């Protein structure tokens, strides 16, 4: 399950995050969408739960049709990006 890395300093202003990665000395800026998804990466929520929470935040309750599939794809892509930039750990079993 995706988990935000612990070596980060961060602040969230009006839904957008700025993150300092202490371990790699790198700065990151996340828009509101990426921030929302990054904040869901608590190490306990599977990707499907994150997608549903994200959908709910976007006002898409109970929708299991094509819109939800698109949300799943967007969330998965964002998680890949976050992992690629070292902001989250994404163990293999969560795939």
């Amino acid at each position, binding site marked *: 399950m995706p988990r935000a890395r612990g070596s980060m*300093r*961060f*602040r*969230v*202003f*009006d839904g*957008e*995050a*700025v993150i*300092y990665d*202490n371990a790699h*000395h790198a*700065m*990151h*800026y*996340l828009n509101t969408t990426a921030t929302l998804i990054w*904040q869901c990466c608590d190490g306990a929520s599977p990707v499907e739960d994150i997608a549903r929470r994200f959908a709910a935040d976007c006002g898409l309750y109970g929708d299991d049709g094509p819109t939800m599939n698109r949300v799943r794809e967007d969330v998965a892509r964002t998680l890949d990006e976050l992992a690629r930039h070292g902001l989250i750990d994404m163990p293999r079993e969560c795939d």
Partner: protein
Amino acid sequence: MPAEGAAVHGIRPVPDTGAEGPAWSEPRHYRVGPVPITLNCDVPGVIREFHACYHRYEIDLPPPDAFRVEVMSRRSRRSLRKYHHILGNGEQLFVTRRPDEIMPHVEWAINSLVARFLPGYLSIHASCVARAGRGVIFPAEPGRGKSTLAAGLLAAGWSYLSDEFALFDLRTGLLVPYPKALCVKAGSFAALEALGLPLQGAPVHHKRYKGRVAIVDPFAIRGDVVAGPCPLTAVIFPRYVEGAAPRLEPISRARAIFELTRVSFNFPKYRARGFELLADAVAEAECFELTAGELQATVRLLDAALATEPATGRQTG
């Protein structure tokens, strides 16, 4: 284009630097804001001009932590031409044959030392002014018009912190003044004179990559021009677009912090501490991107937009 050495908009050309004068003078010592400087220069005209800008900050004893700037004039053994070598802390930074390049490159050498070595401050590449004790910074890479903007705002009654560095005191988080001489490009002379900036007495020099520049003593603008330490209340990323209507667009604080670290000279030195300092400072500030056009209109826009107290950002995390 005026011929080399001719007056531009009534501004006198750089005076005879006296390069053939006495071989060496005693080093002179200054503390400009938090920046300790020892100038050792064998070109009397440069010493005179430097001292004219910084005499208020002269101190008797050499500060132990001083940034040492030396100007040594030597003749080439091969060509017998005279070259002026400008050194910072013993390292050769510039060599020029042109006497009118010395003063701006002395300033450049000091800037280089401040950017690399000044302890105790997180430094951002920005011009920096204040109004009613509230600091406003214009972070930008060279050529974005930050010095011209600062000079225009000073002419409009704002107070001065620096035209090159926003220095955040690591202990207090406040912006501190480093009231170095303003370096104004020739392209801005007419606009600044129209705003009432007293450029008439400022000698014109030549600076590599920038062309003709005037070095302006900020106290020539008015006696109380320099602000004291103050909190940050606005971060404005300027971009000059010729002929554009000036426009101020809000950006998020998160993005502003991210961009500030990119134009910081020493963020890598302070890391997490620097991040926390910037985040705390920007949390209390408004953040914008500025499309700067005609100077007078841009100053009017900033005057109006920054007249009110900033709202604090909704912060979580």
